[in-house]
């Protein structure tokens, strides 16, 4: 050392001098300093979060919970050197790399489980992977086996935002990310927040923020508007008439009769509006236990359900005593009410009056499903066509049935 200083002294005036001493000391100091040489600053750098909610709050799952949050890292390369590793430190106090880094409360990069999504700008070295072992909770280390230059902008999605990803800080407010690029994967894995470890390329600081989630609640009342009418209802069940249907035709007089010559029909209509989330079911319940038309409230049943109460639409034949119904596709309004297959096959001459299906037919307690929707509907009309015919041996009399139609919404 003395010799070195002495040589420098001679450069000036041959005697020990302050400039010589300062110069030599400066050189020695600069030589001895850590080799933390960040060649350039990463520009256009940002981290976009999929969720800004703080973790450990009242929202525990999904967006707003601050869990399984995807962080999209983006930056433009600085010195364009080969990069084999990227380190991101998350700090509560500062984005500047010479400051100490205080881990944000509650934050976790979840390196063991966080997966990487779309990557672009990675260059010839290919995609990065997460270094799953070793990093502290507030750090994620991305490495790859082959180092190469990056292309701008580099974009890497960290976490999928649904089943894996970062846990946001549990506090509301600003926190910071410090992004470092390293020449090799091993150098990135050896990254130290306070001491140079070698292989450093570029650096950049980023500010992020969690924030409160705005919560607004409102209620929509459950509603069901259902009507049965002898005339097609207008919107909101307007213009309904009593659905008292007299089946038959006139034969030499004014009174309507049914006989073996015809299949006589009559119409009724239903209209449903409901906001039931899971839809509505319309059921039909026949007051006659036999399922057909009766002169004595069901004790006898001389006009039986068509097709012996079978559960499929059936071509009713004039002269073979029977009573049945079919239902049309829903019309008007919004939403769809679909006829049940027992009462609809697209042929308006086919009828059914299911009284045989165990546990669910027109004679059981809650009747038989004739139509339904899978969601809310509004002002949807369905036409019910009732048909009846008598045989030559059907006893004379006044035949009737009360058919209750029941709409049930599932909310």
């Amino acid at each position: 050392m003395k010799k070195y200083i002495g040589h420098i002294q001679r450069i000036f005036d041959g005697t020990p001098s302050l400039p010589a001493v300062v110069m030599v000391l400066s050189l020695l100091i600069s030589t001895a300093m850590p080799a933390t040489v960040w060649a350039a600053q990463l520009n256009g750098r940002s981290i976009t979060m999929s969720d800004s909610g703080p973790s450990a709050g009242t929202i525990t799952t999904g967006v707003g919970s601050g869990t399984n949050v995807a962080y999209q890292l983006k930056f433009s390369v600085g010195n364009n050197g080969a990069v084999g590793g990227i380190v991101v430190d998350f700090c509560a106090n500062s984005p500047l790399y010479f400051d100490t880094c205080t881990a944000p409360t509650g934050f976790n990069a979840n390196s063991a489980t966080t997966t990487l999504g779309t990557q672009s700008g990675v260059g010839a070295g290919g995609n990065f992977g997460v270094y799953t072992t070793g990093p502290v909770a507030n750090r994620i280390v991305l490495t790859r086996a082959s180092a190469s230059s990056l292309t701008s902008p580099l974009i890497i999605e960290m976490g999928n935002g649904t089943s894996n990803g970062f846990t946001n800080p549990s506090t509301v407010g600003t926190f910071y990310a410090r992004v470092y690029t390293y020449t090799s994967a091993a150098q990135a894995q050896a990254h130290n927040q306070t001491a140079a470890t070698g292989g450093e390329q570029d650096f950049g600081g980023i500010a992020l923020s969690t924030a409160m989630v705005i919560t607004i609640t409102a209620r929509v009342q459950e509603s069901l508007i259902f009507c049965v009418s002898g005339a097609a209802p207008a919107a909101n069940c307007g213009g309904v008439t009593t659905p008292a249907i007299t089946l038959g035709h006139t034969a030499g007089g004014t009174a309507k009769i049914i006989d073996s010559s015809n299949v006589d029909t009559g119409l009724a209509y239903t209209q449903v509006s409901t906001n039931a989330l899971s839809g509505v079911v319309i059921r039909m319940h026949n007051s006659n236990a036999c399922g057909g038309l009766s002169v004595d409230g069901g004790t006898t049943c001389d006009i039986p359900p068509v097709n012996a109460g079978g559960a499929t639409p059936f071509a009713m034949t004039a002269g073979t005593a029977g009573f049945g119904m079919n239902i049309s596709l829903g019309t008007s309004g919004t939403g769809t009410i679909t006829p049940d297959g027992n009462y609809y096959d697209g042929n308006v001459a086919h009828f059914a009056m299911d009284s045989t299906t165990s546990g669910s037919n027109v004679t059981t307690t809650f009747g038989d499903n004739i139509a339904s929707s899978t969601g809310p509907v509004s002002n949807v009309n369905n036409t019910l066509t009732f048909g009846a015919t008598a045989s030559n041996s059907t006893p004379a009399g006044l035949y009737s049935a009360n058919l209750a139609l029941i709409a049930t919404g599932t909310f």
Partner: protein
Amino acid sequence: MLRKQIALAVILVGALLVVAPAIVFANTVPQASSSNYRVNEIFFGSGGNLRACSSTYCSKQAAGETAVGNTTSTSYQSNAGFNTDRQPWLQFTVTNPGTNLGTLTSTAAKTATATFTVKTYLSNGYTVVQTSPGPTNSSYIMLGLTTPTISSVGTEQFGINLVANTAPVTFGANPSQAPDASFSFGQAAAGYDTPNYFKYVTGDTIAYSNKSSGETDYTISYLFNVSNATPGGQYTLHHVLVATSTF
């Protein structure tokens, strides 16, 4: 003689810094720059101190400032003033009123408001993106307006904007710059910037600034309309806003 030596020492140290800056200052952020360095802060004025501390408090002091604020060109921007800082910064504050709108009906629109503020520093601006779905009722999500649309009572609608409205009622407010428009530059994004027109698309940017900005105060105006077919039940909106600043 001593004065000469001191002068020479200063010159040598300065020369050393120019010749080998990456060695000497590699571990610090420079305050001035050459072709290899940049200026983060520089000070011209009659007085000031970026960090004046007692044992209990610290303050930033300034005197004689003649020009403050942000200046930009296509490629560059600068922040003038004594109290500038070299630390990138993003402040994003959301006010959560926890609003309960009560019962929605098909005969009247319901509205609500919430607020958020953003300011960012040493950045190329910011965006505020809404990442959450609309109001949900079990598995059902209320229909969000995908294009800016006026209120229509009896039709299921959910939307927001960031401006002052006069319909369906007078509510909301335009973005407010604090302290004024010479320091703050945030604005409502397209689709969310027209009075009486509302929109809600998850993933949309609803507010932004193209450069570092002082505080901009935003008011979100929420519009709810339901139809007879809007599924019954309780709807909850967790409106998640994500502010991202590019530095």
